[in-house]
């Protein structure tokens, strides 16, 4: 990777017929950064994220993730990233330990690695007693924290989090962000979307997408200065209200 950039995107574009879902976006994400990727429903976040995860081929432009080209090396990208969303995270009918074994196995980790990592995570989350319980029996907050640990189980360079804290109580939401900070401290780059504007304040830098384009990209404090706003909520509303096209 050049100059510690974990993601580079240049004029990245995705069209569906006449519709330009992602319209020439350019940005870099640095190693260990917590990068907030904001936008209204339908602004093009999901499409952009799918391209960066190697799941959807861009129409034009350039992008690399963990040093790999999104056009030619998408299988390598998939091995270097972690992914978690609010909707899909863990297998409910497997136990906590089985989920970890399964994910470790998919990423070709050794039995020794899996065993040590599992013990480590269960200790960290104070879930040692729950290791053999089915995931579906756990409260939502625990599941989300566990899902995050599983998403970075294979020690990826970067983890994509798609609305990871939706519907979670305010205390667990903060515990979740503590885990994000710890991961970033260990050098894992975090790429996160959220509808909670207070969480935008916790990011190193934030981009705001409107109608397929990146309208703003800066640190939260600089964005507030630029838009003379008291909070990120205000910044977001000001930009997102400019949107012309209908959601999704």
């Amino acid at each position, binding site marked *: 990777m050049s100059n510690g950039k974990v993601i580079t995107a240049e004029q990245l574009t995705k069209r569906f017929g006449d519709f330009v879902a992602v319209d020439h976006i350019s940005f870099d994400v640095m190693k260990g950064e917590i990068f907030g990727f904001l936008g209204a429903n*339908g602004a093009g976040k999901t499409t952009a994220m799918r391209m960066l995860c190697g799941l959807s081929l861009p129409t034009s432009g350039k992008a690399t993730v963990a040093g790999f080209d999104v056009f030619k090396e998408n299988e390598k990208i998939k091995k270097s990233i972690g992914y978690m969303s*609010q909707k899909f995270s863990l297998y409910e009918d497997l136990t906590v330990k089985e989920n970890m074994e399964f994910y470790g196995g998919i990423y070709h980790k050794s039995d020794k690695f899996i065993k040590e990592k599992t013990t480590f995570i269960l200790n960290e989350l104070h879930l040692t007693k729950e290791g053999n319980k089915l995931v579906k029996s756990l409260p*939502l907050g625990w599941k989300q924290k566990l899902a995050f640990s599983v998403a970075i189980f294979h020690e990826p360079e970067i983890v994509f989090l798609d609305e990871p804290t939706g519907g979670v109580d*305010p205390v667990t939401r903060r515990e979740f962000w503590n885990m994000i900070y710890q991961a970033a401290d260990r050098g894992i780059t975090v790429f996160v979307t959220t*509808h909670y504007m207070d969480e935008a*304040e916790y990011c190193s830098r934030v981009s705001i997408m409107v109608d397929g384009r990146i309208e703003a990209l800066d640190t*939260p404090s600089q964005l507030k200065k630029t838009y003379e706003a008291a909070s990120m909520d205000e910044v977001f509303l000001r930009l997102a209200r400019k949107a012309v096209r209908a*959601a999704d």
Partner: protein
Amino acid sequence: MDKTKEKVVAGVVVENIIKTYGKKKDMTALNDISFDVQKGELFGLIGPDGAGKTSLFRILTTLLLADSGKATVDGFDVVKDYKAIRKRVGYMPGRFSLYPDLSVEENLNFFATIFNTSIEENYDLVKDIYVQIEPFKKRKAGKLSGGMKQKLALSCALIHRPSVLFLDEPTTGVDAVSRKEFWEMLKGLKQQGITILVSTPYMDEARLCDRIALIQNGKILSINSPQGIVNDFSKPLWAVKSDRMLHLQNELQEKDFVENVYPFGEFHHVVMKNESGSEQLRNFITAHSSENAVLQQVKPDIEDCFIDLMKN
């Protein structure tokens, strides 16, 4: 006192409702819940996923039976008078529940017809909401965007002119702009005299309700007006920030004058055990001036109250 008379005027009355799941009844969804909603009131159930909000909505809309307790909607008993209730309530479930293969117009027509009415008859009620999606009335509901689906679902829940409207997490997964628009629509409906019970995991929406119940793990933590809930927060609350936020939080956590410290947007909120702690906090911040530490007193937010109530 004349309790029966009181019940007649209330929009919703919930008395000691208990609901458990599982063969051994070992999963408690609602643990002895009681509250009432006045006619024409906009009442919010605020709590995270798994708090029991949906179970409660399903009981009140007669789709689920409670283990014990009583509830009435518009004066009708949810068990005995379920047919009467079904005629007079509107229900927007958390999950999109319209027919994806029918068009926008067909969906609305369908809901009007099963309630023996027509779009024309009650058009004035849904007009403000429906006009926003009317340009797409020939489009299949399954092809609508999230925000438009939400507007159609609300129109369908309203087309028979219900007296009580139940909205289960109508804004979940919806962006900040659409959320604000949705609450504007609710204000409009409230002015038409409809009783509205709405649930949400977003604490910032609580402010827009007349009264709210904070709910967690099947229990009500507090019921009051949003202002009342905030007024009940009696401990000193401060906002702090510095160049080293994580470090600041860890250090404050160790202090014995601090009851709780947690991130809150750009700042950390620090809850003091008592007034004398504020002086110690001020000294602490002065000692950290090289890290640009700043301190300001803040008014508690609903979220501060929720965190505090969860702890105790």
